[in-house]
């Protein structure tokens, strides 16, 4: 390796290490905020037929958020290893029931969980432990998580699917969401469904 090449490699290594340090110290990113477009993420299709039917997804190996048959998608970023997500799970299930029992809202609002850093097995453990009735997607290598902005958990996004196929964030918030009734009311209002 001549001196010039050594210099290039050395500079690259220093830049890389500096950027790596930035990544560490940032310890999280910036999630999409209200009014912004939700990142174009591609998710693996759930294996479970009930989950596929719920989302209205047919065929293929993957899907995108605008492909979900709904006007509004509530996305929870969770982890089976997160104590707050564990404690919040029954309330999130109640939210699902409220929507499912409402004949007007059940086809307009769908729910989806993304298990940050969780393998399919780990997501399955969480789904089974808390009898989660809506689809949970494994994001074992944090690929989706990084695209979404490295949020803390649990984190909830409300995403409106527009007629032109774009999808816009109308709710973006960390932590407990309070009562399921109030949360649903605010979802309906903020999304413009009513």
């Amino acid at each position: 390796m001549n001196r010039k090449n050594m210099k290039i490699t050395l500079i690259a290594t220093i830049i890389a290490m500096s950027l790596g340090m930035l990544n560490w110290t940032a310890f999280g990113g910036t999630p999409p905020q209200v009014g912004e477009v939700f990142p174009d993420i591609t998710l693996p299709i759930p294996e479970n037929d009930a989950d596929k039917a719920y989302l209205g997804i047919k065929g293929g190996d993957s899907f995108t958020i605008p492909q979900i048959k709904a006007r509004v998608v509530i996305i929870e970023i969770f982890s089976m290893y997160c104590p707050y997500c564990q404690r919040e799970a029954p309330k999130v299930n109640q939210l699902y029931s409220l929507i499912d029992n409402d004949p007007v809202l059940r086809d307009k609002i769908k729910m989806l969980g993304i298990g940050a850093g969780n393998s399919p097995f780990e997501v399955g453990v969480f789904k089974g432990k808390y009898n989660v009735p809506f689809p949970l997607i494994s994001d074992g290598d944090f690929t989706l998580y990084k695209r979404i902005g490295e949020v803390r958990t649990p984190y909830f996004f409300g995403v409106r699917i527009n007629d032109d196929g774009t999808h816009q964030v109308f709710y973006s918030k960390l932590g407990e969401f309070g009562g399921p009734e109030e949360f649903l009311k605010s979802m309906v209002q903020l999304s413009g469904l009513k």
Partner: protein
Amino acid sequence: MKRQGFLVVALGIIWITLVSTTTAFGISQAYKGNIYNPGLLKPTDSTLKVKAGECAPDFSLPAVSGERVTLSQYRGKKNVVLSFVPAAWTPVCSDQWPGYNIVKDIFDTNDAILLGITVDNIPTLFAWTNQMGKLWFPVLSDFWPHGAVADKYGVLRSDGVSERAVFVIDKKGVIRYIGVNDINARPRLEILVRELEKLEK
């Protein structure tokens, strides 16, 4: 041509560093920003002193609950999983046990008990594990003599914390599985479950 090759290598180094150093453990809001991030550490930094098939060295350690737990008290009664995690209030460790906390049924099915061990002292472990909710398994302090049990098993790192290691010990006290994980990443739950399912119930 050679210069272009080196440019590719250089850019490759930047890219690999960017994608590999972003981690996301300890992200639960349960810890409210109290997690100290030690940065990327050497994946492992010790040499095992035991191996699968050998009798697990006995030990007795104080638990956060106030009792003293001795490994041999489970001999003939329970399979035992030792989960060493490096340190309280750090990213990956703060994730690992809350996950084990919701799979007590898997441990029960395999007639196993879990013993969580760190080299932290009892007050630190008390404050830290309180954030995880009520844990069903004993949390033991290997603080004094510092890291003596971790050292006995060969999982004490040169900076005084333990490795992120799992030992599966059967009812006869024989080590059946040893997993020393990269300290920077959480071991997959399915690996432990698979090893538990191999044990005699």
